C-alpha cells in the first residue's frame, strides 16, 4: 500500500459494489449492477471503461460523481475516504465533475450559456466579484474553443450545435476547478465528423490541466486512441485491464475478443459477405 503522500492527487475506487432492488409484482430480486470494482485515476491520465449497455459502466460513473451511493466499497480521494455530506461533499464535487452523454438534455434551455458557466463559478468561489466571474466564464469558453467568447456567452443552448453544446458541458465541468472528469459517452450522440474535435479537446485539457479522466464508452477504437489504460466490463465485473494498446492488440479475455470481433473494421471489406456465402 502506498502511503498517503504518494496517494495525494489520486482518485480511487475501492471494491465498489452496487445492488439494485427489483420488484416484479410481489417478488423482490436483486440486480448486481457492479460487483467489486477497483481502479484509480491519476492526474494527466485517461482511463477508459468499455462494455455493452447494462454492463454497469454508467453506474460506476454515477457512483464516482456521487450521484449514487455504493452498496459497499469506498471512493478514496487524496488518500482519504470521500465525504458523503456537507462541506466535504461540496469539496468533492469541486474536484470531481461529470460530462453527460446527451448535450441536448444536460443544458437548461431557459438559461444562456453565460448562466451555465457563471453559476458554478459563483457557487464554488463565493468571494469572487462579478467581473472576475464574468472574465473567468469567458476564459472557460475560449479554453473549449468557443471563440470569440462574447459571441457565445449570451446565446441559449438551442442556438448551438450538438458539438458546441458538448463543449459548453465540458467548460461547465471545468468551472469549479475540477481535477477529475468523469465523461459518460461524451461523443456518442454527436455526428461522426465532430467527434474527433471534442475528443481532442478533452485530451488537450487533460494534458494541459493534468486532469484525471474516466472515459466511458462502447467504442473500442476511440478508447484505444484516447486513453492510457482500458478496463473491460462484463455484467458488473472488470474482466480485463491493461495499457490500451495491449488490450486492443493482444486481448486475453474471451469477452474482449468478442467485442473486438464485433467492431466494424473496413479492412475486412467483403469478408463477411464471402463468409456467409460460403455457408456461414
Amino acid at each position, binding site marked *: 500500500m502506498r502511503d498517503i503522500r504518494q496517494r495525494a492527487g489520486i482518485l480511487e475506487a475501492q471494491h465498489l459494489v452496487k445492488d439494485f432492488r427489483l420488484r416484479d409484482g410481489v417478488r423482490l430480486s436483486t440486480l448486481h449492477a457492479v460487483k467489486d470494482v477497483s481502479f484509480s485515476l491519476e492526474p*494527466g*491520465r485517461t482511463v477508459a471503461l468499455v462494455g*455493452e*449497455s447494462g454492463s454497469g459502466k454508467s453506474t460506476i460513473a454515477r457512483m464516482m460523481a456521487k450521484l449514487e451511493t455504493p452498496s459497499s466499497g469506498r471512493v478514496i480521494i487524496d488518500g482519504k475516504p470521500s465525504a458523503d455530506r456537507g462541506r466535504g461533499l461540496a469539496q468533492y464535487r469541486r474536484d470531481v465533475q461529470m460530462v453527460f452523454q446527451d448535450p441536448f438534455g444536460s443544458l437548461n434551455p431557459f438559461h444562456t450559456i453565460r448562466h451555465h458557466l457563471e453559476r458554478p463559478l459563483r457557487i464554488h468561489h463565493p468571494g469572487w466579484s462579478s467581473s472576475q466571474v464574468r472574465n473567468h466564464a469567458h476564459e472557460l469558453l475560449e479554453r473549449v474553443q468557443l471563440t470569440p467568447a462574447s459571441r457565445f456567452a449570451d446565446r441559449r443552448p438551442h442556438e448551438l450545435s450538438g458539438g458546441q453544446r458538448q463543449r459548453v458541458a465540458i467548460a461547465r465541468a471545468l468551472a469549479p476547478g475540477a481535477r477529475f472528469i468523469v465523461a459518460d459517452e461524451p461523443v456518442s450522440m454527436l*455526428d*461522426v*465528423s465532430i*467527434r*474527433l474535435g471534442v475528443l*481532442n479537446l478533452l*485530451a*488537450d*485539457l*487533460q*494534458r*494541459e490541466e*493534468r486532469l484525471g479522466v474516466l472515459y466511458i464508452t*462502447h467504442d*473500442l*477504437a*476511440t478508447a*484505444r*486512441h*484516447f486513453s*492510457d489504460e482500458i478496463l473491460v466490463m462484463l455484467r458488473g465485473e472488470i474482466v480485463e485491464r491493461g*495499457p490500451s*494498446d495491449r488490450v*486492443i*492488440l493482444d486481448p486475453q479475455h474471451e469477452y474482449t475478443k*468478442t*467485442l*473486438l*470481433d*464485433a*467492431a*466494424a*473494421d*473496413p*479492412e*475486412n*471489406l*467483403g*469478408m*463477411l*459477405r464471402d463468409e*456467409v*456465402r460460403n455457408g*456461414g
Partner: protein
Amino acid sequence: MRPDAQPVLTARGVFIEYEVDPPVKAVRNASLTLHRGEILGLAGESGCGKTTLAYGLNRLLKAPALMTAGEVTFHDADGRDIDVVELRDESLRTFRWDKVSMVFQGSMNSLNPVMSIRRQLHDVFTTHRPGMRRREREARCAELLGLVGVDPSRLSSFPHELSGGMRQRVMIAMALALDPQVMIMDEPTTALDVVVQRGIIREIMRLRERLGFAVIFITHDLPLLIEISDRIAIMLEGEIVEQGTAAEVYRAPRHDYTKRLLASFPSLRGERGDFVRRGADTTTGDAA
C-alpha cells in the same frame, strides 16, 4: 446469388423539398441505381437527407416534404417497369411492402406496445394477402421468426417482453414477410450494442444470400458500410457526392468529404492516423 448488372430500382434526378419558410432543399439531384441482390450503402451525417431520400424512393414522404422533380422506377422481377412516382391509392398500397419494404430508424420502438407479435405479423398478411388461410398465416409467421433467429413461441409475446435486439429482428421479419425484392434499412442497428448489432448484420447478409433481395442500407457508420456493402453512395447536404464500390470508396476516395468522413473513424488495430492525442504528454509512461 451474386449481384449482377440488372437494376431493380433506379432513381433519376430526384429533388425533395420541405415546403416550410424558407424552403429546405433536402435532396438535390440524387440519382441512384440499385442492382438485384446487392447491398447499396448510403452514408452521410445527420441532416444530409439520407432518410428523406429513402422515404422518397418508397413514396413515404409526408407534407411538408414534397418530391418536386425526378423519376423513380422499379423494375419488377417479371419484367414490368413500375413508375413509382405515378402510383396512386390502391396500386401504391399493393406496391409498398410487397415489392419494397422498409426497416425504420429506431424501429425497435415502432412495434405497437398493446398488440402481440402474432397480431402484428398476421396484420401484414390480412392486409396484403386477403385470401390466406389463418393456419397458413400462422405457419408463415412462425417460419419468419425462425428465419431471423427468434423462437416462434415468442409470437404470443408483447413487444416489452422482448429485448431490443429481438424487437429489431421481429421488425426485419415483418419486412421480409411478403418476399420483397428491395429492403430499405434506415439505421437498423444504431441503437443496439455492438455484439448484438454484429449478430443482426450477419443475419441480414445470410438472408440476402438465401432470398436474393437487394438492400439499401442507410447509416452514418462508414466502417460498417465498407465492410458489408457492394457499393456505397456518400451524401452531403442533399447531394450524392460520391458513388463507387466499397473498395474504391475505402482505398481511393475522390471527394474531400469522403476523405474527411473516413478520417473521422479511428482505426481499431492499425496506425493512429489523425488520432494522435494532442497536447504535451505530461506522463512519463508509454502513452503516445
